[in-house]
């Protein structure tokens, strides 16, 4: 089967040349890396930026007056400015560097959540990753908050209009994912934020699966908190961003104590630095931030709308071809999806599928995708998931389909 007539003029081969890891064989087959929702690969620009930092500029930041310390500080703060630009935040002071989305949500649950009282409510959605469930349950155990859930339908679409009915005078925060990692659903976060704001409730958006696929403007969304992980955005692991509106961050107590987050310290009392330093105790992942900046600049050189259109063509093609595999069921069929497809095949456990397609060079995720409530909702223990980036090709989708057929030949 040949790939469909292409609408966009996306030069995927030129993009692939920027990602050295893609040009390899696995078990004697060309690698088809279709596990981008788990983590993305890194372009040369990112790898080189990190190597350059350690070869030439490495020093600790915000202290020391020597040349390397100044270079490292300038590079780290330039990364903050790049993240501000990437999200269109008003100020770089609204950008807190964290380890990733998980830490960002834990930070908000701990610090912003410190003011919550027993009986106060946090509303999440039925399709959250464990990272946007468990921190609230820990807060629940500490302070007795109530966790409420926006339901979804059988296609994996949230009943957004239910949000208004869930909000009460005790609701302190709505925390929803922008894009579901398990289903691919793109949630109408602007609409959800508008509903919450009508009731005076702030909103945290988990953007981990959104920013790799689409431009995000936190001012246009009017998000109160927005977070993402660098490693899902072609950057290193261990670096991520929490955006928070300045007035919210300024009102929040520290998350961790230590160096770099204080103004003065005595044994009687310490006073704390303003945001974002207040939330960045200890030496941060400086090289990670520099790698994130390189990734953002790399994305800025691409035509991101063309990349998005190309990914949507990959999604359409993959969906069509997957449906030709006997016994295959797609889990999550929302009309608005990022390039993520979850599926099951009758008679084959996803774990066996993952092992078999790997032997044909195809890397997919199998399991519960850290979204056990989503698996329970759809009545499956696990799914297989193919997730795409703008460097994937139609040929890789053909390779996946071929490998799935071989799995059926072997096991069904």
């Amino acid at each position, binding site marked *: 089967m040949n790939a469909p007539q292409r609408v966009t003029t996306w030069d995927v081969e030129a993009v692939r040349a920027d990602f050295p890891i893609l040009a390899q064989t696995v*078990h*004697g*087959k060309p690698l088809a890396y279709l596990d981008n929702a788990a983590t993305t690969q890194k372009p040369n620009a990112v790898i080189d930026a990190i190597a350059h930092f350690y070869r030439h500029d490495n020093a600790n930041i915000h202290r020391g007056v020597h040349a390397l310390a100044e270079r490292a500080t300038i590079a780290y703060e330039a990364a903050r400015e790049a993240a501000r630009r990437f999200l269109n935040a008003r100020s770089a002071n609204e950008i807190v560097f964290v380890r990733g989305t998980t830490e960002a949500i834990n930070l908000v649950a701990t610090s912003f959540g410190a003011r919550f009282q027993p009986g106060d409510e946090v509303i999440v959605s039925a399709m959250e990753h464990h990272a946007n469930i468990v921190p609230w349950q820990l807060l629940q155990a500490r302070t007795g908050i109530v966790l409420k859930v926006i339901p979804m339908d059988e296609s994996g679409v949230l009943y957004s209009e239910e949000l208004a009915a869930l909000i009460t005078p005790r609701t302190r925060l709505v925390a929803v994912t922008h894009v579901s990692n398990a289903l691919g659903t793109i949630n109408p976060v602007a609409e959800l934020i508008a509903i919450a704001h009508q009731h005076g409730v702030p909103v945290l958006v988990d953007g981990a699966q959104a920013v790799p696929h689409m431009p995000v403007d936190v001012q246009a969304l009017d998000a109160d908190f927005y977070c993402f992980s660098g490693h899902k955005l072609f950057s290193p692991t261990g670096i991520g961003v929490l955006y928070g509106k300045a007035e919210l961050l300024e009102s929040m107590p520290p998350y961790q104590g230590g160096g770099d987050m204080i103004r003065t310290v005595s044994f009687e009392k310490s006073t704390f630095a303003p945001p974002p330093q207040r939330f960045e105790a200890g030496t941060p992942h400086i090289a990670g931030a520099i790698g994130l900046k390189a990734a953002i600049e790399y994305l800025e050189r691409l035509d991101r709308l063309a990349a998005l259109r190309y990914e949507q063509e990959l999604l359409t093609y993959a969906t069509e071809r997957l449906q030709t595999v006997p016994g295959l069921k797609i889990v999550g069929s929302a009309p608005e999806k990022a390039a993520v497809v979850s599926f099951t095949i009758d008679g*084959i*456990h*996803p*774990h*066996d599928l993952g*092992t*078999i397609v790997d*032997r*044909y060079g195809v890397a997919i995720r*199998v*399991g*519960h995708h850290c979204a*056990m409530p989503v*698996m329970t909702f759809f009545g499956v*223990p*696990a799914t297989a998931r193919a997730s795409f980036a703008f460097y994937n090709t139609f040929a890789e989708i053909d390779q996946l389909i071929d490998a799935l057929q*071989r799995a059926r030949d*072997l*096991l069904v």
Partner: protein
Amino acid sequence: MEQELRDLYQELILDHKRRPRNFREMADATRTVEGHNPLCGDHLRLFVKREAGRIVDVSFVGEGCAISTASASLLTEALKGKTVEEAEALLGQMVELLTASEAPPDPMALGKLGVLAGVRDYPSRVKCAMLPWRTLEAALSNDDAPTAISTE
């Protein structure tokens, strides 16, 4: 490629995956233990009926991949009629077969169970084959032992 995969998914494993033996609940079991692999969501319930130091019946229900299902099915076949001491010895041999750093000299010394040795080339799948055996370990231990085990 085909051959490597066939070393893992041997005909005997596929047969037990398609038609698991002793796949039923047991109302009069003397011990029931839940086994769970949180990494992949596999879970099984193992039923053991002991009489006078002998395993007179063993069965399981649950949901899992081909490897864990076949491993559980083969386990029930191998254990029925064994004394508790024999079962413990077999458990030790299976742990050795599946997890020891040195490959066993003759997997087929364990009879049909030797087919599970294929998982040794798939480190991420060893836990699938081990799940029923870890569950058995809990089932054979003292009565105050946990009634649920996890591979993690």
